[in-house]
């Protein structure tokens, strides 16, 4: 059967194999051509030349806040896509329902705004 997602499946498999093969081959060619002197600092990270140590992957909590807001609003948008497709069929009833839904989310949005969640590094 001509399944509509066959092309997607083929692209997933093909691009994964092709790109992994390209990078692996390039690494192999590079290894053959490069000067192979090993030096302590050659594999160190890009940073003024200190010896590499394991670093804690710490980032500001602000980034997590935006991720939370994203979950709030993008899940809403995914919910709105089917509504938008059937908008003309649902008519006034669907519109009022969605206005109510957007209003409830807007309340949350205004709360986040007032709380300073949208300020970068708010000192409050």
């Amino acid at each position, binding site marked *: 059967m001509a399944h509509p997602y066959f092309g997607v499946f083929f*692209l997933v498999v093909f691009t994964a194999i*092709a790109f992994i093969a390209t990078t692996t081959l390039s690494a192999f*060619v590079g290894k053959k051509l490069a000067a192979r002197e090993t030096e302590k600092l050659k*594999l160190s990270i*890009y940073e003024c030349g200190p010896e590499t140590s394991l*670093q804690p992957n710490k980032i500001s909590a602000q980034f997590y806040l*935006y991720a939370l807001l994203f979950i709030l609003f993008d899940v809403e948008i995914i919910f709105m*896509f089917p509504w938008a*497709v059937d908008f003309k069929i649902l008519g006034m009833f669907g519109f009022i329902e969605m206005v109510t839904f957007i209003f409830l989310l807007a309340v949350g949005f205004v709360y986040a705004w007032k709380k300073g969640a949208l300020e970068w*590094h708010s000192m409050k």
Partner: protein
Amino acid sequence: MSDTTFFVIETIVKSLIIVAVFSALAGFGTYFERKVMAFMQRRYGPMLVGPQGVLQVLADGIKLFTKEDIVPANSVPLIFKIAPVITASTAFIAMAAVPFFPSFEIMGHTVSPIVADINIGILFVLGAMAVGLYGPLLGGMASNNKWSILGAARTVVQFLSFEVITGLSLLAPIMMIGSLSLIDINNYQTEGGVAGWLIWTQPVAFFLFMIAAFAETNRTPFDLLEHEAEVVAGFATEYSGMRWGMFFIGEYANLFTVAFLVSLVFLGGFNDLGFIPGALAILLKVAFFFFVFLWVRSTWPHIRPDQLMWLCWKVLMPIAIINLLITGIVILA
């Protein structure tokens, strides 16, 4: 030849053509970018390799390919190696649902130049492009470098925030059309030539989507994730050679996907434009949008991350929701 065999061969050929053409276009995209920016800054750009420097692409390719592969100490090798592949792959997978040209006849079969004709086209394209986010995120986190982790965090925040704008701005045209398939969206604009384009009925959505497109493809006013002066090269700091090249190919492939999306949704897609046939019309539109991306890059300065977030959440999102509500009222009235 049975229909199923033909379908399988057709799909495979189309996929191979897309990957080959857009990988090559990504290379030539860098050449055009350097040339256009050079002329805007009153220089010549690449001139030495080949006539007018055309073979610069080839030279760059050889250089990238033969460069020694460095996996930094204390990184997580497997994730470090997989991350660029994720970015490049998802950029091409997103193209599966984009109809590039009008359908044509070959050997008695009608061939439509779309790899997977799925009925949720636009949602699929946005979703697959969003998965590309994992490339910079995992690459940055696996590098064990402060610049990388900062770049990765910025990537996530920027892509996620503008994902909301992309979705909201596309909802308004979808309400008018009533379908998520890009072919239906294109056919909706068949009547009336230029006057039938959705940009005239949805100008606000068009500008919102364009702004979000700059952020989603990491182009200059919003290229905070690899802003040299602040975070060295962001998530790609530790990458070199072909692994870095994979990120690059993914970025340019996304650029072309977005240019096709804008042309299809807002600018009449591949409908015939007066005497210009549809296939040429969409190529002209895509070329124009590619030029706009370069034009903006050489015109505008970078902005700060907090300004970006301010723009996204406090300006664009309220505008997008108001645009949505006004569209709804106008359709029902």
